[in-house]
């Protein structure tokens, strides 16, 4: 018997959703540019799903929209919640249309057949998120990225250094540089540090600068998390 060529796996992938409200080339280009300039590294080559759920206008040049996105190094991978009017134009681009249920594949209302759902759940439970552990100081000008998991630093992060993770960031020392958790959009990611002197802290693209940090929390052990689109910095 021949060896198995492939296996179908259920999995959940984190992407950005670009929720389009309205579209004119000038405004969209300008606003996208502003957004991306806040954190160019986050968005570089990011896959993005364009949602038209809240799109109110009747006019939309799909091809132009995709061109603008690609110009800024985003990778549009699908559309979702598409009005029937745009379906034909989107089909021409070759990108898939996600039905609403497909994007909520983990939800209870999923119409996926039962056996498949079991596979998906098993896969998720056994999915092991690797952590990256750094034992020496992260120096000015250095960048450390924990892809697909948590970043644990058993030393300090110097001014001018940058630490990034798809998951949480734990720093058992002073944080004087920048820490960016959940950079692929995980809003449940958190940043923990022993001594807060950071230049910038970010969770899933929401960031706070040292100037806006509560002075009473300076040099304290804190955690930073996202709740209702707002970053909270609290002592631990």
């Amino acid at each position, binding site marked *: 018997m021949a060896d198995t060529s492939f296996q179908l796996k259920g999995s959940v992938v984190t992407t950005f959703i670009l929720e389009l409200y309205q579209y004119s080339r000038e405004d969209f280009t300008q606003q996208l540019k502003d957004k991306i300039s806040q954190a160019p590294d986050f968005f570089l080559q990011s896959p993005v799903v364009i949602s038209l759920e809240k799109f109110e206008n009747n006019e939309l040049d799909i091809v132009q929209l995709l061109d603008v996105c690609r110009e800024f190094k985003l990778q549009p991978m699908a559309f979702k919640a598409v009005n029937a009017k745009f379906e034909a134009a989107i089909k021409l681009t070759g990108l898939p249309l996600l039905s609403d249920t497909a994007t909520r594949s983990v939800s209870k209302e999923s119409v996926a057949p039962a056996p498949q759902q079991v596979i998906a759940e098993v896969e998720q439970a056994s999915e092991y998120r690797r952590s990256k552990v750094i034992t020496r100081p992260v120096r000015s000008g250095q960048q450390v990225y924990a892809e697909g998991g948590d970043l644990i630093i058993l*030393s300090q992060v*110097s001014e001018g250094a940058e630490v990034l993770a798809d998951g949480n960031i734990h720093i058992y020392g002073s944080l004087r540089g920048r820490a960016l958790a959940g950079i692929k959009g995980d809003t449940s990611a958190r940043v923990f540090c022993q001594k807060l002197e950071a230049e910038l802290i970010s969770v899933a693209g929401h960031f706070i600068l040292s100037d806006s940090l509560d002075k009473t929390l300076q040099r304290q052990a804190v955690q930073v998390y996202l709740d209702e689109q707002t970053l909270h910095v609290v002592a631990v």
Partner: protein
Amino acid sequence: MAEIIVITSGKGGVGKTTTSAAIGSGLAIRGHKTVIIDFDVGLRNLDLIMGCERRVVYDFVNVLNQEANLNQALIKDKRNSNLYILPASQTRDKDALTQEGVQAVLNELSESFEYIICDSPAGIEKGAQMALYYADQAIVVTNPEVSSVRDSDRILGILQSKSLRAETGAEPVKEHLLLTRYNPSRVEQGEMLSVEDVVEILAIPLVGVIPESEAVLKASNQGEPVIFDESADAGQAYSDTVARLLGEEVDFRFLEAGKKGFLKRLLGAK
């Protein structure tokens, strides 16, 4: 095998060459055969600080290009027979340095010397990277001010990532912090970072603190490394530093204002 020590800082003007001259001389005074190499190709200074500028015939780049052999280029110090200088070229630039060439020179020097001191140029570019690439130990020269501290942090990052020891996964380069131009009375007035501040930020062991001293400028202009001036506080502080580098435990001096200057102040000196 010689121990290769790089004197580096990132920032310019903090005292790398003064330190190279003093530490190299200090090791020689203690009987260790030592050579100091000037890696600052194009901005040759070490020969002036060592007072041998009139004796430079061939230089480091001539040796790299095999236009001269090492014995022709090495200058023997007139004060101490254990001490040699390999001057930089003044007419070339850092592109004259090649990894293979530097390695060949260091290998040859390793056969006859105990210590090789590499006086790094400022910056983080090719010259500085060449100077630190083969290092076993690094002395990071830092002034007690924020920009110097940040640049030192940057060079520590480069030591951890771009040295031969880092690239081959060998035991990391041994790092030492040397604080120069330290002025305790300005620290007390809050105008200068304290030793504790700098040690906390850089998080590496302290090997010495050199007080700000008029003796340093005088020594540079006379071409006599300050460590030979036994009456100067800076000279004594460098001697202590060399002792610590060799593993001795020596208490830190010149960290507080007033103690040493008491008599001087009574006499009205500044």
